[in-house]
């Protein structure tokens, strides 16, 4: 019998106690993994937003608390446009409001003339007409939710807009929202002449990294965004989610650690005599430690698997809610599950230290006499 099987057999001797401990730890791990999936998905959605329209990079206001709160003026657009390496700058105003059943319907205001420089694959209908004010293009998710078709009408912020086209970008924000003339969004948002982000296309052969570094150096109030690493300059929300995730992970390790310690201490005390016998037949202290720590690790690995499965089911369930679906599409990447496993290992090690220490200190003679 392999040693690992012996460890497993010990674990299942007290099925109810082991089961309850696994349940408790798996709840903590499910919270860590689910939050990791949501954070990762939110980051992906944000990263997608930066690459929208086939731009080389985006520009936002340095220090904004949230990407969507970034506010730029026409003068900022001019500053970026003045760089000779820049081929075109599209200013975009983002707005969110309740449309249909979606409480956070994303509205992307853009000058229809800029659509010529903005890659927006049309699957049905056409683009916005230059000068038009009452037109809208919808993403496929939005069209489905609103049951809208090309030629139909939708209500956005008390404006009746005609659906002129359906596009598909593969990004959560855009596919779940709509693109409409920026003049219309300026009007109902009362943000005349303002932009949330600038999407920049450079001329062929441009060193984009050098250009963005120059823009930031010469205009410290602007933040250039090429990827997720830059997002923290204009979005504190994702950082907060990361911090929250770390906090929950640490809490899970401590609370889970105490649960494991309780289970393992009981197991060690109940098996005092048995541990004495194992010492009597020649087991070294190290092997006793391996057995106790092995039981704790196995307990936590089972909890990690259960917790991860629960987290996947949970995230699949919550994206059924339109509020959540508007922002994220769950991403199941290995790193979030590895984080869950690491939390499990942390719980196991923390929970096993004391019981293993106690078990290793038993004198074989005393342990055998123990009743």
């Amino acid at each position: 019998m392999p040693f690992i099987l012996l460890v497993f057999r010990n674990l299942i001797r007290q099925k109810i106690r082991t089961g309850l401990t696994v349940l408790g730890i798996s709840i903590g791990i499910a919270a860590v993994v689910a939050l990791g999936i949501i954070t990762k998905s939110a980051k992906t959605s944000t990263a997608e937003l930066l690459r929208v329209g086939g731009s080389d990079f985006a520009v936002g206001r340095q220090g904004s608390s949230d990407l969507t709160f970034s506010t730029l003026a026409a003068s900022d657009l001019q500053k970026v446009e003045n760089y000779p390496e820049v081929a075109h700058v599209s200013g975009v105003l983002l707005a969110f409001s309740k449309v249909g059943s979606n409480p956070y319907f994303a509205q992307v205001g853009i000058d229809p003339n800029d659509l010529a420089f903005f890659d927006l694959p049309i699957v049905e209908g056409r683009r916005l007409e230059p000068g038009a004010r009452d037109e809208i293009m919808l993403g496929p998710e939005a069209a489905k939710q609103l049951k809208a078709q090309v030629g139909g009408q939708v209500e956005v912020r008390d404006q009746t807009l005609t659906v002129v086209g359906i596009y598909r970008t593969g990004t959560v924000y855009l596919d779940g929202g709509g693109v409409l003339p920026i003049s219309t969004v300026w009007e109902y948002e009362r943000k005349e002449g303002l932009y949330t982000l600038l999407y920049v296309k450079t001329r062929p052969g441009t060193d984009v990294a050098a250009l963005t570094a120059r823009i930031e150096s010469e205009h410290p109030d602007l933040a250039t965004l090429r990827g997720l690493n830059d997002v923290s300059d204009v979005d504190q929300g994702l950082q907060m989610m990361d911090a929250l995730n770390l906090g929950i992970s640490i809490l899970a390790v401590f609370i889970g650690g105490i649960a494991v310690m309780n289970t393992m201490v009981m197991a060690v005390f109940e098996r005092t005599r048995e541990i004495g016998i194992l010492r009597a037949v020649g087991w070294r202290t190290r092997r006793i430690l391996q057995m106790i720590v092995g039981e704790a690790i196995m307990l936590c690995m089972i909890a990690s698997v259960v917790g991860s499965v629960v987290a996947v089911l949970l995230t699949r369930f919550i994206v059924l809610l339109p509020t959540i679906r508007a922002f994220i599409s769950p991403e199941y990447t290995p790193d979030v599950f590895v984080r869950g496993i690491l939390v499990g290992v942390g719980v196991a090690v923390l929970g096993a230290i004391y019981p293993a220490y106690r078990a290793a200190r038993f004198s074989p003679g005393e342990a055998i006499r123990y009743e």
Partner: protein
Amino acid sequence: MSEKPPAVEIVDLVKTFDQGQTRAVDGATLSVAQGEFVAITGPSGCGKSTLLHLIAALERPDSGRIVVLGEEITRRHDLSRYRARTVGLVFQLHNLLPNLTAVENVEVPMYETGLGMRERRRRALQLLELMGLADKARRRPPQLSGGERQRVAIARSLSNDPPILLADEPTGNLDSKAGRNVMEALEAIHHQHGLTIIMVTHDPGIAASADRIIKMLDGRIEEG
């Protein structure tokens, strides 16, 4: 030609409990030759089990020396290897792990010897066969009779092929028939394998199976 050293040599051994209030072993001196079958007898509380535990290195003496096969074990820091390789232990209660089968119980001491999984299993089955329990190898302790459990415990004590077997009241919890079977098993091992056996018993009938009987009283060796 040099003479073989004694299997076990004990000199002025003292072991106290309760901060010195109870002198369980009080200056015991004893020598057991290799291949000898010795029974230690005496009334309850005379210190015979404590003496056996000291030889098994389950306890450390307060003073005195224990020399096993020429090596003084009282000076050793780590006694795990000694317990794994030099002595095999049989207790009054079988002390088998209840969640493991008979064959798995016999394998337990072998984890420390570095034997592979298949070799462990092969050897464990061989020992159970020696004990007449080949057909009960897959049974767990609660599915075995008292005598069978004790014979599994004997097989376990032989797992690592130790030269010395220490048995503490091996028939104490058994009826006479089962006790006789266990004694027959011990005698067979002694005769066939030339093992040194030191057995503690309070039963004169059981002690009579031994080559030599040592009597203990109040922690001291009285005769033998």
